[in-house]
């Protein structure tokens, strides 16, 4: 576990992709089976044990430390695993363990605090981990295999034991692992690339066989080290790594020729891969994958019967009612449900809108140019002839000006009544093969212009994680008529959209213009003549009884700082209400 923890720790600080690869490859080379295989599984999100809920970790730390101190620490550090790893107190020593009866104010920190002493803390630091007789810390394999078989009720005790046995970094890595949230800036792709480097293989080769492999990947490592044959992927319906688009900037168009591109609508749903294939007995297996390769078939059983032709479709999951695409808000109500009831299925009929065809029966189409795959897709969808699966239409255009017009008004450019569900347009090079990841210059996304308002910064809160020393979460408001004249009412929160430089500027502004502090929240001056105006961009509006203003924004972000604008000139709530009305009318029309 400690070697794995050390790897995670170094990766977390290493900014360079090549250095990360070197660290990973070095680890795979040095560490033997099966530990390295479980490490690869952890880094690719392939571990199958049930993850511990953050609530369990909270309970554990609550049993060992003071609740208020934990709360303040968590607020400061911004990461649950790290907070617990740092403040985890060592187990009570034998001499203290007789305190089974409730003692007055048994703060568990007393032992820690008083034990250290203030003079010569170095000389007799025996209370610290140096000379303890604890069992050796667990190996990664031990942790993973134990977690697999451990009953739910035994988990807390086991975790507690491990936390006592590991050092700070080890505890941090353990908690990251058991909560299933490593988040150290390593993609599954990077981990597989590092593994591939072990045998000088193309990472793409590893990707192709990956769905048939399972931890601890003994066969994979044997192949990579030249000790075994290449593993064969026997999964009849494997996931194929998804191809993604770059956001296009105005300046990009100059270098692009419209004739090289096919445009289509970007639907506001969930990007999925729908795969069907025959197993050894000739039976069809169908699976639905999220864009990260997560198997989400279980959430959409109503789509499975429609996936009866062997092939792999790249498409968008949508809710269709009477042939009309519903908004993302509607789709959202079908997501993350534990039980998919017949009632839910009926109220939210699922639909797949196809963009691309990656496989047609036994044939892998990914090397073909997009234009050709598109033709194959049209044939495939036609042959399937299923009302639940249709083709995403292309948008014809001869010039960028024409496409600009189509994007501005999808309703008259072919999207018709479904225009509300159009998020923008996608541009795909006619000759682009289907490449995993986000290759440069192949696919572009061009979203519709967001809504924009000018709002006033009201409160600021420290960010989490990387931003824990910055005031980076902003609550902003707009003007409305109050009892004593105009007042600001909060309408939303945003914590991104600004540049690093702008973050520094806002942070400085917040610190210099704080009028009150409420715990981690700073109340920032917001008077008609004094304050900071933020230009806020957002994708949509909803009525919300939970917000004082009655409206909630979708995807709000700071698009500009308006140092030039006095707060009194910021927008009013009525403006938002008008936007809301306009949106509702569109939907109901």
């Amino acid at each position, binding site marked *: 576990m400690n070697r794995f923890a050390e790897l995670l720790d170094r990766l*977390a*600080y*290493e*900014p360079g992709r090549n250095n990360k690869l070197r660290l990973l490859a070095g680890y795979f080379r040095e560490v033997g089976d099966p530990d390295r295989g479980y490490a690869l599984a952890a880094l690719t999100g392939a571990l199958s044990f049930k993850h511990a809920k953050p609530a369990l970790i909270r309970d554990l730390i609550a049993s060992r*430390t*003071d609740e*208020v*101190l934990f709360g*303040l*620490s968590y607020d*400061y*550090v*911004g*990461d649950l695993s*790290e*907070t617990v790893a*740092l*403040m985890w*107190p060592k187990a009570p020593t034998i001499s203290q363990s007789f305190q089974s009866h409730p003692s007055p*104010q048994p*703060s568990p*920190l*007393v032992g*820690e*605090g*008083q*034990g*250290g*002493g*203030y*003079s*010569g*803390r*170095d000389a007799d*630091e025996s209370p610290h981990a140096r000379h303890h007789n604890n069992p050796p810390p667990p190996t990664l394999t031990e942790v993973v295999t134990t977690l697999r078989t451990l009953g739910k009720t035994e988990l807390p005790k086991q975790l507690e034991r491990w936390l006592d046995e590991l050092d700070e970094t080890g505890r941090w890595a353990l908690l990251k692992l058991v909560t299933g949230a490593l988040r150290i800036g390593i993609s599954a792709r990077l981990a597989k690339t590092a593994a591939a480097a072990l045998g000088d293989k193309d990472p793409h080769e590893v990707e192709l066989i990956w769905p048939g492999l399972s931890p601890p990947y003994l066969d994979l490592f044997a192949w990579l080290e030249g000790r075994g044959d290449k593993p064969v992927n026997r999964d009849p319906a494997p996931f194929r790594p998804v191809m993604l688009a770059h956001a296009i900037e105005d300046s990009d168009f100059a270098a692009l020729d419209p004739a090289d591109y096919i445009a289509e609508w970007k639907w506001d749903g969930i990007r999925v891969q729908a795969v069907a294939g025959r197993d050894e007995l000739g039976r069809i297996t169908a699976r639905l994958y999220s864009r990260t390769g997560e198997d989400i078939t279980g959430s959409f059983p109503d789509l499975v019967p429609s996936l009866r032709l062997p092939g792999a479709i790249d498409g968008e999951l949508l809710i269709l009612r009477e042939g009309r695409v519903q908004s993302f808000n509607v789709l959202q109500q079908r997501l993350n449900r534990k039980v998919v009831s017949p009632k839910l299925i009926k109220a939210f009929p699922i639909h797949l809108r196809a963009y691309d065809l990656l496989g047609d029966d036994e044939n892998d189409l990914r090397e073909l140019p997009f234009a050709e795959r598109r033709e194959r897709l049209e044939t495939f969808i036609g042959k399937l002839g299923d009302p639940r699966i249709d083709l995403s239409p292309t948008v014809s255009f001869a010039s960028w000006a024409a496409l600009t017009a189509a994007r501005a008004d999808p309703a008259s450019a072919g999207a018709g009544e479904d225009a509300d569900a159009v998020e923008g347009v996608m541009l795909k090079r006619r000759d682009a093969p289907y490449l995993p990841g986000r290759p440069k210059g192949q696919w572009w996304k061009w979203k519709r212009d967001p809504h924009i308002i000018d709002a006033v910064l009201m409160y600021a809160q420290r960010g*989490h*994680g*990387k*931003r*824990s*020393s*910055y005031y980076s979460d902003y609550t902003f408001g707009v003007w409305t008529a109050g009892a004593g004249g105009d007042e600001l009412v909060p309408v939303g929160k945003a914590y991104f959209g600004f540049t690093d430089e702008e973050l*520094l500027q806002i*942070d*400085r502004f917040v*610190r210099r213009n704080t009028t009150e502090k409420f*715990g981690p929240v700073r109340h920032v001056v917001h008077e008609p003549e004094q304050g900071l105006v933020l230009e806020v961009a957002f994708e949509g509006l909803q009525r919300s009884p939970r917000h004082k203003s009655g409206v909630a924004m979708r995807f709000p972000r700071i698009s500009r700082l308006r140092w030039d604008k006095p707060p009194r000139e910021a927008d009013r709530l009525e403006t938002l209400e008008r936007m809301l009305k306009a949106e509702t009318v569109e939907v109901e029309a």
Partner: protein
Amino acid sequence: MRPQDILLPAAAGLCCKPGGFHIDPVRPVERAVITHGHSDHARAGHGAVLATQETLDMMRLRYGENFAGSTQAIRYGEEIRLGETCVKFHPAGHVLGSAQIAVTCKDTCIVASGDYKDAPDPTCTPFELVPCDVFITEATFGLPVFRHGDAADEVEKLLASVVLFPERAHLVGAYSLGKAQRVIKLLRQAGYDAPIYLHGAMETITAYYQSRGIDLGELRPVKDVKKGALAGTITLAPPSATSDLWTRRFPDPVTAFASGWMRVRARARQRGVELPLVISDHADWDGLTATIGATGAGEIWVTHGQEDALVHWCRSQGLKAQPLDLVGYGDEEESEAPASDEAEA
């Protein structure tokens, strides 16, 4: 006598009415008593300043000869009558010359500890525990997530990295007063005897440390050294410089930062630190709580830093405790960490 009749927070800083002075005032006052030389505690422009010789010297080096109307040096353990009070200086273990100030009036003793640490530091006099009725403690690292560990282990980490990357320069961000000299001394104690390079902003104070008999081995200004010659070397620089254009003079530098803040990953990452070194000149959580308990004080005043957590802890121990809302310390350290809220930690 009620403690608040002796010392009370005022706009200019902690004010002692019966003694007629302020402790570490942030605005110019008639009489200032100063704990240590860091710029958030020692400012220029006071009428009379009472401090240790080292602190006075540092102020002179930073602000020039005329930094105060008049000055008076005091030694550790020396006692001086000021108005109706008796003032005594005790070592704080924070940086060279740093002091805790014990103010006694009638039968009540208050210790204003300034910044302090109870961990060993080869460049200054060790912290002395002063029994008192009211203890004024800092809370820079007043959260139980802050446990600093042994500074020597961190220096080993730095040396291991130098061995691992002989073709790269190691750039260690460290506050120029105290931390830099401590890191250099720790490197020497770990057996590193190659020349250590200094950013220009470190030279004066470091030379002062040497003049006070602290042996730091061979030090060289990094200015004018050729890029290639810096491979495999260690350079100390103010933290702000390590993310500056200035770093381009180094071959593929590894950026380290010696600070208690490095305990928290996000802190290290947002600064682009690749090699965090947890070395602090402030007491960590265990140090703070141990010291508070050991002073025997029944009442604790908590200032600059994470007051809430430490006040809560004190109360859970049955101690009377309150945050002292002093502004201007740590939080707005301007000279070395612009646009950040980090104290000289």
